[in-house]
């Protein structure tokens, strides 16, 4: 039982970090209908830039600040150079453009900072919490706990931003109907610029947390791919869906790896979330909280 709890908690904590990556996807999809495949590359770019700056002798906070600026610039440029000329194209075309962007950003990151694996130290130690280990004999990593705390705080912050501020309301209006939003005077381009900047910020946080946990390496982009089943489970347009989906995926993949994995040769973590999401889709094609798909001719 203790072991089960340990695995479950570990899974849930990493699940929150999946949600964090998934959140970046949801933000952009909600506001502009673009499925931004490059979110993973942005996570990688952010982590690599921070580490690169720290390694060249900068203090951590300054590096994070500079990376933040870089991410906002990257987001704005993407919006201006890639997406604006493609306005009103089919959404599959936009999706493919973001795949192109993925390659570009990954190449850019590696061209600037090199492809080596680097370690990122945020000053949080990855040790089991002592009081929990003593009282309940469950090992929960302190780092995971703090990381998911940060992730949760960010999620709450974004939720407030979306529901309470003027910009947030404008964002939701744009997400609902571009035309209607334009006609009541919401500047569409500003809104998209803001969304891309926010997505860049989310990518930075995700990149820092994942980078510190697993090392900053190319495999980070695969972590971002894991956000896809999270999105499928939760629905592409739902922030709560992204969070709950992340928790389900995180917990189930760890449990499956520990309890089913040994019987089939292990390593099932790589595909289990996808198959789970796939099976789920057969039952509920719009995800847990996605908008009900109504199709007309």
């Amino acid at each position, binding site marked *: 039982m203790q072991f089960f709890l340990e695995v479950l908690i570990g899974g849930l904590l990493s699940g929150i970090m999946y949600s964090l990556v998934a959140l970046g996807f949801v933000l952009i999809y909600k506001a502009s209908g673009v499925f931004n495949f490059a979110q993973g590359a942005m996570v990688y770019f952010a982590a690599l830039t921070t580490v690169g700056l720290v390694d060249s002798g900068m203090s951590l906070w300054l590096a994070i600040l500079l990376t933040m600026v870089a991410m906002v610039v990257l987001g704005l440029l993407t919006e201006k150079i890639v997406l604006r000329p493609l306005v009103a*194209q089919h959404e599959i075309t936009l999706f493919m*453009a973001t795949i192109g962007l993925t*390659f570009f950003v990954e*190449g850019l990151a*590696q061209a600037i900072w090199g492809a080596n694996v680097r370690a990122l130290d945020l000053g949080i130690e990855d040790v089991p919490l002592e009081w929990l280990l003593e009282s309940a004999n469950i090992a929960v990593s302190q780092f995971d706990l703090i990381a998911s705390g940060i992730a949760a705080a960010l999620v709450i912050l974004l939720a407030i931003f979306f529901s309470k501020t003027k910009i947030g309301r404008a964002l939701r209006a744009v997400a609902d109907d571009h035309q209607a939003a334009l006609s009541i005077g919401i500047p569409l381009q500003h809104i998209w610029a803001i969304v891309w900047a926010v997505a860049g910020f989310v990518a930075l946080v995700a990149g820092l947390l994942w980078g510190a946990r697993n090392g900053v390496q190319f495999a980070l982009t695969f972590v971002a791919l894991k956000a896809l089943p999270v999105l499928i489970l939760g629905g592409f347009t739902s922030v709560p869906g992204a969070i709950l989906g992340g928790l389900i995926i995180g917990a189930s993949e760890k449990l499956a790896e520990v309890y089913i994995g040994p019987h089939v040769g292990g390593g099932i973590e790589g595909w289990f979330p996808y198959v789970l999401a796939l099976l789920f889709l057969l039952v509920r094609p719009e995800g847990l909280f996605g908008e009900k798909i109504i199709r007309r001719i």
Partner: protein
Amino acid sequence: MLYREAGQFKATYVEDSEIFPIRQDKFGIALILAAAFVGIPLLSVAGILADYTFTAILTPFLIFALATLGLNILTGYAGQLSLGTAAFMAVGAFASYNFMLRIDGMPILGAFILGGLCAAAVGIVFGLPSLRIRGFYLAAATLATQFFIVWVLTKVGWFTNYNSSGVITAQKIEMFGYTFDTAFSKYLFVLSVVTVMALLAKNMVRTNVGRSWMAIRDMDMAAEVIGFRPMRTKLLAFAVSSFYCGVAGALFAYAYLGTVEPEGFSLDLSFRILFMVIIGGVGSILGSFFGAAFIVLVPIFLNTFTGFLENTVGIGLPSGISSSIELMVFGALIIFFLIVEPHGLARLWQIGKEKLRLWPFPH
């Protein structure tokens, strides 16, 4: 002037339903085939073309073109976005390997066809979700195919014949007592297979099967209403597409890599083939060849270019950087193509034909 179909009348139904109804097209295709089957071999015999041309350019180009054709049937004609192409190729390669290994006297073409059929069966299974979901949901779901199949091929020892290293040498390609073991003969073998399959595809997309795919692509609800059965149509698209990818995968392993290994069929390969479809032209048979040629040639040009820079100007790039730059150029090109010409190189060719029709009197 040069490309004008005026005056070419069709008097019979047979003439009317030819694959290439325009005389210039027929002539062009015959010319290309003659160049590929006779011209290039002659150049090779004369010693002008080195083995490198075959192993690094022509053979991979043809194999990728076939895989692109497969994906184009699914994505371009039937409108189902897939990110699992490499997995279907892997199924084709491993199935062919096992048929060759376990059945004595299995003809290699038979093994390839059976391998393609296995890929088609797997394609049908993983195409089932497409009946319920579409668009991005489907794209994300096909990632399941990619990761799951590669995992199965790595973990289940039977597929790799319990080879500990996971890298198996592919059997020799033998037909009628002749062994295709030189780069040149492998090229001819691949060329023959690709030619036949490309012509079949070209024919297929204009039959009722192809039309039903396009109807589903353009609006599946409307297609359903006018009487196309979505299940049959979509699954058939998955099956045919996977068959093409499977055969391409078998060729990839046998004629190009020379080994059969799961790592050869990574997600990266899936993306690469998707790019070939986009750059070549979504929903175009000819475009598949353009796209494959483009993606195969770009890295070679880049390498030559950086090599040239190094030799003349003396600016050498570390190998790590040049591969990153290759990625950047790839990405930038894709974005560029989508913005400038969302219909790909095939569309440029179309525009060229329009111009030729009027040339040299544009009014």
